[in-house]
């Protein structure tokens, strides 16, 4: 990857020069594309045919701008380009590329504007056009929302096709042979006589050709890579300890830093005494930063140790000190004053309730949760007089550029960002506090690279956790069927909290408040879903599956209670109510896979639950089977089916689905972040366990390909896991779980 880093850096020193022509290669879905950032820096004999393909004498580099947090994004992006480019995956290098508006995420704009479809209601003020324009303008190069595949499925293949055709045009000019007689294979243009020219040889000529547009993409029958098991490009490195992550990176002359911030997150520091810390071995300095101090040392551990020796006078947290106050805030939010959206209002719930003989009602709770990727956050920042350089694992490279530019007092274009491999994220690296803090230190140590590493405790207690949320349901059953279902969901706005930290606001209602609930594929005669935007409490952020991570539980748990009241079968009643063919097939698939024969306990402590959540466009259904043992609940098996249009890599698909199920189950079992005196009570994995090997069930996965849209699978397996587990525990024990984590009410083996 070295070569691209060099030219990238040069490009920022030159500045942002718009290159006329040669950029609209059909790889864009907008009328006026952003300038190709590779062209600005490409040297003689280098062909940057699209923003995604760079060819020079030393090889072929595919640009994979969506960050790899472990979900295999680099491999899948490379495969999509390579499919049309006719290169093999072992022939290419990959590079995340420079932060650039050319790499803006169009699919994320669609997700953010989820309320575009229905008309009427309070959310009408949300405009897809507004959001889309905002995202394009700022070049929202973000990895998130399971959008890497939907965003890239057409775009990246078009980029590969445009590059391939341009190389063929170059070969035609060089040889005088007609384009139609040329074909491509394994990085070469093959001539009719069987001889060939490598893409590298053709790069200088290709660089002078305007790439063709609107090349027809190959159909599924012609795919060489898509749909077949792939070996992910990082698998050897990640199995031999040779994969370098952000936390492993080193830069010549760097110093190590650790920070200690007010344990009441966001609270002020009134004073500190670092005299003891300054006397410790290896400690170079203790500097004040926003909300705390940074210890500068010659070793990570010494910096951690010295941080513990600093004495502080802290102020209070800027949010309520106790959990009771947080829950009271949510509890008080189910009123018109706080109504944010009502995008589902079928039939007439009120009349249905008024006429009903009995009303079923319940309240549900979901806690704050840390992201806790196993690699704690880190960043290296060096700030010079007129330039800065950043090495970090991030999902938001453009925000990093902007924020470091602000702190350094230089133009963001003078900030070079090196995107490094990430040891997990789950949404954690959509935030860039660690980079801003490293930059605050680096600005005081001009010219010296500063490596800031979070301790696990810093990482967990100063995470911006998943939203806390509460839901209230009411419903009516009649003649053994669910007739009426009302669900109200209250939470603070994740989008407001998260984008607020970037100085941005998003207009209109926050679709995440009701994501995974308002748009589910069930035709219940009287059905209403209302989102209530609670006042901001602790600062929060996107956590794998975002709003649906809480709402998938609420929606399915409420539905389960009604189905039980009706005396119906949880799977059969969902299938009966289902109004979407592809969703129904997903439910039928898990029924068939699990040999579903009812949910209720068989007298031996076994029980099954089922749930379906549509999130990020994916219908995902799960059946969980448990046994209640003397040691506690044991999760025996999970069956999962998900509709994604096309499974691009069956291996990675299987791995991500299983991981998502385990993530959903583990947190539902035993994880929460709570606050006492405004301070997070959980600071490490002893108090935030998740699932471990001995608790992990067998998981059977099936990907369905009936839908027209190609969708991502990183997040959708998470939301149905908790409610399917709750349903199984109810079937096995009769205990109805309405609050996560379930370990507050039952033991797990």
């Amino acid at each position, binding site marked *: 990857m070295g070569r691209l880093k060099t030219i990238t850096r040069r490009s920022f020193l030159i500045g942002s020069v718009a290159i006329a022509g040669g950029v609209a290669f059909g790889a864009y879905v907008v009328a006026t594309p952003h300038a190709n950032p590779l062209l600005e820096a490409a040297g003689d004999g280098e062909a940057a045919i699209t923003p995604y393909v760079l060819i020079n004498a030393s090889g072929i580099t595919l640009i994979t701008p969506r960050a790899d947090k472990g979900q295999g994004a680099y491999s899948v992006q490379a495969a999509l380009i390579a499919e049309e480019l006719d290169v093999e995956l072992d022939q290419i290098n990959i590079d995340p590329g420079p932060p650039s508006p050319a790499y803006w995420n169009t699919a994320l704009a669609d997700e953010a504007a989820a309320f575009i479809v229905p008309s009427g209601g309070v959310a009408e003020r949300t405009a897809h056009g507004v959001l889309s324009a905002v995202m394009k303008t700022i070049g929202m190069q973000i990895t998130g929302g399971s959008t890497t595949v939907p965003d890239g499925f057409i775009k990246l293949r078009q980029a590969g096709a445009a590059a391939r055709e341009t190389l063929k045009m170059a070969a035609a000019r060089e040889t005088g042979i007609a384009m139609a007689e040329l074909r491509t294979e394994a990085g070469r243009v093959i001539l009719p006589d069987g001889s060939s020219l490598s893409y590298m040889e053709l790069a200088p000529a290709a660089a002078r050709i305007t790439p063709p547009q609107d090349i027809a993409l190959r159909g599924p029958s012609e795919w060489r890579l898509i749909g077949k098991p792939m070996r992910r490009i990082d698998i050897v490195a990640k199995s031999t300890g040779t994969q370098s992550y952000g936390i492993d990176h080193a830069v010549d002359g760097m110093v190590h830093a650790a920070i200690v911030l007010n344990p009441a997150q966001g609270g002020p520091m009134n004073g500190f005494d670092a005299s003891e810390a300054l006397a410790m071995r290896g400690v170079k300095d203790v500097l004040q930063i926003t909300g705390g101090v940074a210890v500068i040392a010659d070793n990570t551990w010494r910096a951690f140790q010295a941080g513990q020796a600093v004495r502080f006078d802290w102020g209070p947290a800027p949010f309520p000190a106790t959990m009771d106050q947080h829950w009271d805030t949510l509890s008080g939010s189910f009123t018109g004053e706080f109504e944010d959206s009502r995008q589902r209002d079928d039939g007439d719930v009120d009349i249905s309730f008024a006429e009903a003989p009995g009303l079923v009602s319940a309240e549900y709770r979901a806690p704050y949760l840390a992201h806790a990727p196993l690699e704690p956050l880190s960043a290296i920042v060096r700030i010079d007089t007129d330039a800065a350089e950043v090495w970090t694992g991030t999902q938001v490279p453009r925000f990093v550029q902007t924020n470091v530019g602000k702190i350094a007092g230089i133009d963001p274009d003078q900030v070079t960002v090196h995107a490094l491999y990430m040891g997990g994220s789950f949404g954690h690296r959509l935030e860039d506090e660690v980079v801003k803090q490293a930059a605050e230190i680096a600005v005081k140590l001009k010219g010296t690279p500063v490596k800031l590493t979070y301790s696990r405790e810093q990482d967990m207690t100063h995470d911006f956790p998943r939203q806390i949320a509460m839901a209230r349901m009411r419903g009516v059953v009649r003649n053994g069927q669910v007739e009426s279902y009302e669900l109200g969901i209250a939470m603070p706005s994740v989008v407001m909290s998260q984008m607020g930290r970037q100085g941005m606001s998003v207009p209109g209602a926050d679709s995440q408040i009701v994501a995974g609930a308002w748009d589910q594929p069930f035709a219940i005669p009287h059905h209403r879903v209302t989102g209530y935007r609670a006042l901001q409490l602790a600062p929060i952020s996107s956590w794998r599956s975002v709003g649906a991570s809480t709402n998938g539980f609420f929606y399915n748990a409420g539905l389960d209670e009604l189905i039980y009241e009706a005396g119906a079968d949880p799977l059969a009643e969902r299938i009966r109510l289902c109004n979407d063919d592809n969703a129904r097939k997903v439910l039928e698939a898990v029924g068939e896979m699990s040999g579903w024969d009812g949910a209720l306990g068989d007298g031996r402590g076994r029980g099954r639950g089922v749930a379906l959540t549509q999130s990020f466009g994916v219908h995902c259904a799960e059946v969980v089977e448990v046994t209640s043992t003397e040691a506690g609940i044991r999760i025996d098996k999970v069956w999962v089916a998900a509709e994604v249009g096309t499974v691009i890599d069956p291996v990675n698909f299987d791995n991500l689905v299983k991981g998502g199920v385990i993530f959903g189950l583990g947190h539902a079992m035993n994880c929460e972040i709570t606050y006492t005196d405004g301070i997070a009570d959980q600071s490490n994995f002893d108090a935030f366990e998740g699932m471990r090997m001995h608790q*992990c069930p067998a998981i059977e996965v099936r990907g369905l390909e009936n839908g027209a849209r190609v969708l991502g699978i990183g997040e959708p397996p998470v939301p149905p896991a908790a409610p399917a587990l709750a349903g199984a525990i109810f079937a096995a024990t009769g205990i109805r779980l309405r609050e996560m984590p379930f370990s507050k009410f039952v033991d797990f083996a």
Partner: protein
Amino acid sequence: MRLTVNGTSREVDVEPDMPLLWVLRDELGITGVKYGCGIAQCGACTVHVDGIPVRSCQLAVGDLEGAVTTIEGLGTPGSLHAVQAAWIEHQVAQCGYCQSGQIMSAAALLAENSNPSDADIDDAMSGNLCRCGTYPRIREAIKAAALTLRSA
């Protein structure tokens, strides 16, 4: 202070209470061993000391007795240990950050027990946390590696 790491004798000038983890990572530049929690809850820092799996975040370097093997010393991309080969074959890794520790724990298990049951695997591996949820593949890969080692 001298210590033997991956067959090589190394000299370090550190305080004896510095955990082995940080001696390896920051003083010797051996980064295959990972920091995840610092309190022996995640297993990412697992190394072998004379073949025994040890959480290097909890072992003060002054208390070290024996030769240290990290993932780099277990096998290399050009010369894989059977466990690493199985990890590649089964495509275990997602983010991969925990896998050094998982592989070191698995290699130690198989050195003791060439035909582990599911319960044996649970016992040996439950101290290694994987936030991505690769446990099903870890289990398969351990069984595959065990088969390779038994037929070797």
